[in-house]
């Protein structure tokens, strides 16, 4: 996504979302729905991007999904389990500014 020039939307915003979904999967926060979303997104970016960069950017994701799908599946969390959400513990400071 660092290589995207930003002219067309599928490549500019699509690669960012692809990266986000992959990170989510690696962090163990993704569900099967996210994986399907990733596949749909890859298909869209590949078929609608303006130039060769966007048209080929999803290829590594698509080929690993094809050959190493089990590794993706192992990292997913079940749909019913609550998603881990980071919350802040209220800082117990009472500074007088």
């Amino acid at each position, binding site marked *: *996504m*660092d*290589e*995207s*020039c*930003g*002219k*067309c*939307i*599928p490549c*500019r*915003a*699509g*690669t*960012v*979302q692809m990266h*986000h979904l992959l990170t*989510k999967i690696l962090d163990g926060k993704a569900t099967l729905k996210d994986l399907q*979303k990733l596949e*749909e*997104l890859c298909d*869209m970016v590949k*078929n*609608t*991007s*303006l130039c060769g960069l966007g048209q080929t950017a999803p290829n590594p994701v698509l080929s690993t999904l094809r050959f190493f799908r089990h590794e993706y599946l192992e990292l997913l969390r079940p749909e019913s389990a609550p998603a881990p959400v980071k919350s802040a513990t209220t800082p117990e400071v009472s500074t007088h500014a």
Partner: protein
Amino acid sequence: MAAKTLTIDGKMVGAHEDQTILEAARDAGIKIPTLCHLEGLSDLGACRLCLVEVKGSNRLQPACAIKVAEGMEVQTHSERLQKYRRMILELLFAERNHVCAVCVSNGHCELQNLAIELGMDHVRFDYRFSGFDVDITHNRYGLDHNRCILCTRCVRVCNEVEGAHTWDVAGRGADARVITDLKQPWGEADSCTACGKCVMACPTGALFYKGSTVAEMERDRTRLEFIVTAREKKQWIV
């Protein structure tokens, strides 16, 4: 000056040879969604919303950039195309801050209207929440990067119609943004003639008249249309 006959969505359509698919479809009453195309400006095929299926081609083609051809068979609203279009819109909504409820263009926005047209009831992608700047240094107009979709209509209208070329694009990928002159604040951009054509051309609430508040911004495109018609058809219709 040859005429071409083609089929759009199963309908026989006659078109002038140097018309694009988008223009031929428009003349035939078929509306193809687009955000970067604006009548009278050059086309760049960047928003990818006007992509259509052309029989015999394995790639989708941007209707705004492809000329009609004899015997061409075009599909403009297949299920696959509509799915892609909706996803492109979702990407746009997730990319920057498009909060319709507090936007000057609420109710008069091309992005908002497209969401309605394509049945986008929610965004499946996680919102990015990346904050951008707002430039209100110009004494008449303002620029909110958070609402910009980088269609570059402002860049083209400023260069091609006004001839000032104040606007351009800087940065790349998700960081790309429209700039005035050499990335100075708009108010200090000497080449700006304050004609306001960029504001008239903008499809969203990114460029606005100062002083307009939520849902108040209605764009007057008639001045742009007047100049474009005068130039292209030599007709001075007031």
